[in-house]
C-alpha cells in the first residue's frame, strides 16, 4: 500500500488517530496537523469533530481562538516580529514599520512570491537582546532594519547566518 499523500484525508486521519485517546486531545491534534501541513485545512475540521465527538462549530471555535493556528497555507517561511514592550524599548516599532515597507505586506499576509508570511508575536523570551524576530523555529536577537533585510534576502536564497 502506498503512503497517503501529504495533506490527504488519510494523512490527517493518521495524526488524529495517534492522539485522540489523550485527555484534552484537541490542541495536540491541531498542532500535529499544522506542524505537518503548515495549516489546518477546512476539510480536517469535520474529521477532528467526528473523532472527538464534538461539533464542527466547537472545533472551529478553538482554532479561531488561538493566534497560532491558521486555516490557510503560509508562505515558505513564517517571520514573526516581537511587538512587546521590551523590544519596543530598543526600536521594535521602527523595525516593524521597516519590515512591512520592505516586504510590502502587513501582518498576517504573505509576499507575492509566497516566500515569507509576516506575523506579529508578543514576546519570544529574548527580552534582554531585542528587537527579536523568529524565523520558523529560530529566534534572532538584536535585529536592526539592515539585518532584517539581509535576513529576508538570505531566506529567499535559503542561506541563514545568524551573526558574523
Amino acid at each position, binding site marked *: 500500500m502506498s503512503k497517503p499523500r501529504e495533506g490527504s484525508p488519510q494523512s490527517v486521519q493518521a495524526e488524529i488517530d495517534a492522539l485522540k485517546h489523550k485527555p484534552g486531545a484537541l490542541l495536540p491534534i491541531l498542532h500535529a496537523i499544522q506542524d505537518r501541513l503548515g495549516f489546518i485545512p477546512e476539510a480536517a475540521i469535520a474529521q477532528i469533530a467526528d473523532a472527538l465527538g464534538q461539533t464542527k462549530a466547537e472545533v472551529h471555535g478553538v482554532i479561531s481562538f488561538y493566534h497560532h493556528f491558521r486555516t490557510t497555507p503560509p508562505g515558505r517561511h513564517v517571520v514573526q516580529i516581537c511587538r512587546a514592550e521590551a523590544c519596543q524599548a530598543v526600536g521594535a516599532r521602527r523595525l516593524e514599520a521597516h519590515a512591512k515597507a520592505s516586504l510590502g505586506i502587513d501582518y498576517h499576509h504573505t509576499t507575492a512570491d509566497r516566500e515569507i508570511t509576516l506575523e506579529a508575536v*508578543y514576546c519570544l523570551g529574548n527580552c534582554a537582546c531585542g528587537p527579536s524576530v523568529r524565523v520558523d523555529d529560530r529566534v534572532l536577537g538584536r535585529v536592526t532594519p539592515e539585518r532584517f533585510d539581509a535576513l529576508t534576502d538570505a531566506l529567499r536564497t535559503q542561506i541563514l547566518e545568524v551573526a558574523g
Partner: protein
Amino acid sequence: MSVHGGVRVFVPCDTTALSLGADEVAARLEREAQARGLSITLVRNGSRGAAWLEPLVEVETANGRMAYGPVSADDVSELLDAGMLDGREGHALSLGPTEAIAYFAKQQRLTFARIGVTDPLSIVDYLAHDGFRGLEAALAREPREIVEEVKASGLRGRGGAAFPTGIKWQTVLDTEAPQKYIVCNADEGDSGTFADRLVMECDPYMLIEGMTIAGLAVGATQGYIYLRSEYPLAQKILDTAIARAEAAGYLGDDIRHSGKRFHLEVRLGAGAYICGEETSLLESLEGKRGLVRAKPPLPAIEGLFGLPTVVNNVLSLAAVPYILAEGGQAYADYGMGRSRGTLALQLAGNVRRGGLVELAFGASLQELMEEFGGGTLTGRPLRAVQVGGPLGAYLPESQWQLPLDYEAFSAAGAVLGHGGVVMFDDSVDMAEQARFSMEFCKVESCGKCTPCRIGSTRGVEVIDSIRADEDRDANLVLLEDLCETMVDGSLCAMGGMTPFPVQSALTHFSADFRRPADGGHS
C-alpha cells in the same frame, strides 16, 4: 579531564545565545581547532543568564573555568591565537574566571545555581551538582511533611499572584479525589521575562524534580507542563529530559524503587497570552477555547477535568528541590518581611547588561538597574521602568528606591509579578505605551467579560483621541473612568490590571498626553 582528552570548551545553547550566533561560534571553534591540530571537547552548556555576554564561551582550566564574551564566530581565530584554550587572559573579550565576574558573584543563586554550569540534558551533570537530592528527601517523607517543609520556606507563587505555595498544596492534599494533577504554568507571556525559559532550557531536570515532589506531596500521579508555543527549543529540551528521566527511574510507575508513581507530559499552548491565567490555562489543557473561569471553585478543589489540581509557575516548582534538599528554613533565611527566599529578576529592554539576576527580596529596584544593569543600552537617561509584565505599572524615578518586595510594590500601586524589569530611555512616549497596553488587551482578551473585551477597544480609541488632541480634557476624564471600570469590573487580571500601566503613565508622565496632535516629540 574529559574522556576525549581535549580541553573542554563550553558554548551555550539556550535561545538567547543561539539568537546571537552561538551555533556559528561552536562550528567555527571546531573547524579552527581541527585545522590547527588542537584537541577540544565541545560542551553545549546552558546559559548562565548574562544575556549581555552571550555567546559566553568558557574554557576549563586547572584553576576553574575562564570566560570570554560576547564572542562572535569571527573572533574565534583571534581568541585561539591569544591562548584561549590555555585560559589565558589579556584579549579584549577575556573576562577572567567565570565565577569571579561581578554580575554572577553578587547574586544569590539558589534556584539558578546550576544554569550555565552544566549540560542541560546530562543527568550525570545534574546529579554531580546536587540534583535529585530534594526528590530523595521527599521520597523518605510523608506527604504532609513535604507540604509542611514548603510552608516553612515561605515560598509564594512566582507567577505573579504571590499566593503561598504550601497552602495551595495543602488544599489539594486535603481534597479527596480519584485523580489529582500537577500543572506547571510555563506560558511565560510577560514581555521582559525569560526566567522560566532559562529553567526549561538550561536546567530541565530541576523542573521535573520540583513537579515530582509536588506530585508526592499532594497525591497526584499525572503532571502537565503547559508550555507556550513561542518556546520551541524549550519543548525539545523538556521532551528529551522527560524521556531520559523516565529511563533513569526518576519518573514513571516506580520512582527510584519507591513504588510511587508520577508521569509528566508537555502540552503546547497556541499563542494566547490569556492562557497564562490559571483557569484559562486549564480550559486550554482540556482542549477548549481559553476562556477564563469564574472562581470559586478554586482549581485546587475543582481544577483540570474538574479534579483537584496544583497550578504553579515554573519558578515556584523550580524552587522546591532546594527547599526539600536544604530545608524550608534555609530558603526562608533569605528575603524581607513576608517575601521569603529569592526572586528571579530579569533585566530587559533598554539595558546595557541585561539578563537574569537572582537576588534575595529586599534590594532596591535602583540598585538592580544600576549595579547589575549598568544603565541604559543607548546611554541616554533612564525615564520609565515597567516591572511585572504588560499588566504592571510604569515607574518614574521617584519610585526607583522601592525595595523588591511584594508588599512594598503593592503599597505603591505596582506589582513585582514575574520579576520582569523593562527599562526605557527618555525617547519613550508614554502615551504611546499606554495605548499599547490597551491594544495588547484588545488583542489578547478572551472576551468573556465586557469590561475587558469592550473596555480595551474603547481604551485604544480614547487614547487615540487624546493624542490627536480631540476634546482632550474630556477624554482624559473618560479614560480615568474607563480604567476604574475595568479594574473593578473585570473577571481576571487581564482586564483588571491592564489599566495599571495606563494609570501610572497618566499619573507620572502626564505631559506625554498633552503633546501637540502631530505626535511632536519634545
